[in-house]
């Protein structure tokens, strides 16, 4: 990467990542192996009470899916980040994070022993003083969750592919929290969790990081 790269981290399969993204900087997430759900939360670095709100993001846009131009909003409706480039075309706002607890509902109690995104969020969030009360509905980059006319919704086969990426610009100083989803019971990771890359770049550089969008 160029000199404007602030940080570049390969997040192993099943692992969390977090980092500070300063106002004006760009965060890109690269789906290295293809069809890898990346669970994602944002907090205002100056006041972590101000965190991503899926519902405000959706209500303001009048639309469920995220893509280029989408504005991620906080619990008070204010912009946190803007998607500036997107190779995939559709990302989920309503499916939330997998947990050991919800796995028991979705698949049965035999699934309790499996690792899950909420474990990652709790583990990684603790580094920033964030706990259980701070978790909320998250973005799922690269995850495909259609809603049928009768309301039936579910995680179906993904639209992503190896190397596709999404880039967002921070509208203020943000803590970004990632869980590279370890789920193996549905197609959100194509039944095979793989690494992703998180890249933070300086203000004037990263617009070219978003690929063909």
């Amino acid at each position, binding site marked *: 990467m160029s000199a404007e790269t602030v940080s570049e981290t390969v997040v192993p399969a099943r692992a969390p990542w977090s980092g500070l993204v300063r106002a004006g900087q760009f965060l890109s997430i690269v789906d290295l192996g293809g069809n890898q759900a990346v669970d994602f939360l944002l907090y205002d670095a100056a006041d*972590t*009470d101000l*965190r991503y*709100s*899926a*519902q*405000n993001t*959706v*209500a*303001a846009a*009048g*639309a*469920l*899916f995220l893509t280029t131009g989408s504005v991620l909003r906080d*619990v*008070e*409706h*204010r912009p946190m980040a803007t998607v500036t480039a997107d190779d995939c075309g*559709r990302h989920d706002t*309503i*499916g*939330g*994070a997998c*947990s*050991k*607890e*919800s*796995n*028991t*509902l*979705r698949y*049965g*109690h035999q699934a309790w022993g499996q690792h899950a995104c*909420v474990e990652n969020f709790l583990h990684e969030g603790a580094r920033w003083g964030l706990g*259980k*009360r*701070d*978790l*909320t*509905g*998250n973005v799922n980059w690269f995850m495909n*969750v*259609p*809603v049928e*006319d*009768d*309301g*039936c*919704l*579910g*995680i179906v086969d993904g639209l992503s592919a190896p190397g596709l990426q999404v880039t967002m610009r921070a509208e203020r100083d943000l803590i970004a929290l990632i869980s590279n989803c370890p789920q193996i019971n549905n197609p959100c990771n194509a039944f095979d969790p793989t690494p992703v890359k998180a890249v933070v770049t300086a203000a004037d550089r990263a617009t070219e990081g978003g690929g063909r969008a």
Partner: protein
Amino acid sequence: MTGSASAQADTPEDSATATTYAARDHARAQESAATVADRSWVPADTFPDTTDHPEGQRLVWAETVAGGGYAHKVLAPGAVVELTDLEGESCAQLALFWAGRPWERLCVADTVKVQWNAYLGAGALLLSDQGRALASLDLDESGRHDTFCGAATAEQNRERFGDGEPWSATPAARELLKLAAAKNDLAPRDLPPTVSLFKGVKADPDGRLRWTGGAGAGARVRIRAEAPLLVMLANTPHPLDPREDYTVSSLRVLAWKDRPTAPDDPLWESTPEIRRALSNTAEFLGAAA
């Protein structure tokens, strides 16, 4: 002070509240003279209209929440809350918590994902973030609800109506829920995503949202507490309500004692996900009992 006020101060015998004794009489005369329709009834069984809830069930909550108002209550497992959209323009923003363990709270994402449906209706559960049923929807005469958009914020109400503060004529749901939370020693970060009852939204295949409005006056929804429940609700316009005016009418809340869903009830085995969520709740309550 104005001239008339100082004149009044010179003639205390003309004022109903010039002395402590007069002020006390004045205060005590207000209850019997009141004609306010949007109010609570305590004890709840003094609620005047006894025709609207099942016979023999003891009311534990009776309140009519004005448009722009909010309410909150702690309920025992099994309590049934009946919400009625009296005039067709109420919209209840609902937040639920496990009473006494408020870090376990309504999880809208799990509610729609686990049950494979975004549109709430009779037979749906409201799930916690810990894989347990907090409540079940017993009755739904509306069919117009929303899990996508949540509670309007002060910022959004300022843009739409010019103000969103609790003391304004156009309070925002989130501001009211913050107050309900504070009275339960909870902070804004404890407020989860909410569900809207009585005003609906549908998604088209591209994910674009369409406001479907309400079902008209008199529609009822019954919510059964499957766990000890802290209920908070704000009665405010839906965030996607396209009307320029702050349009919201009174919401009636009645609750009575009943029992949680049991394994021989049809709901228990209605889906594998519902069976496991109700089982998780029953297991937790059983172990702690």
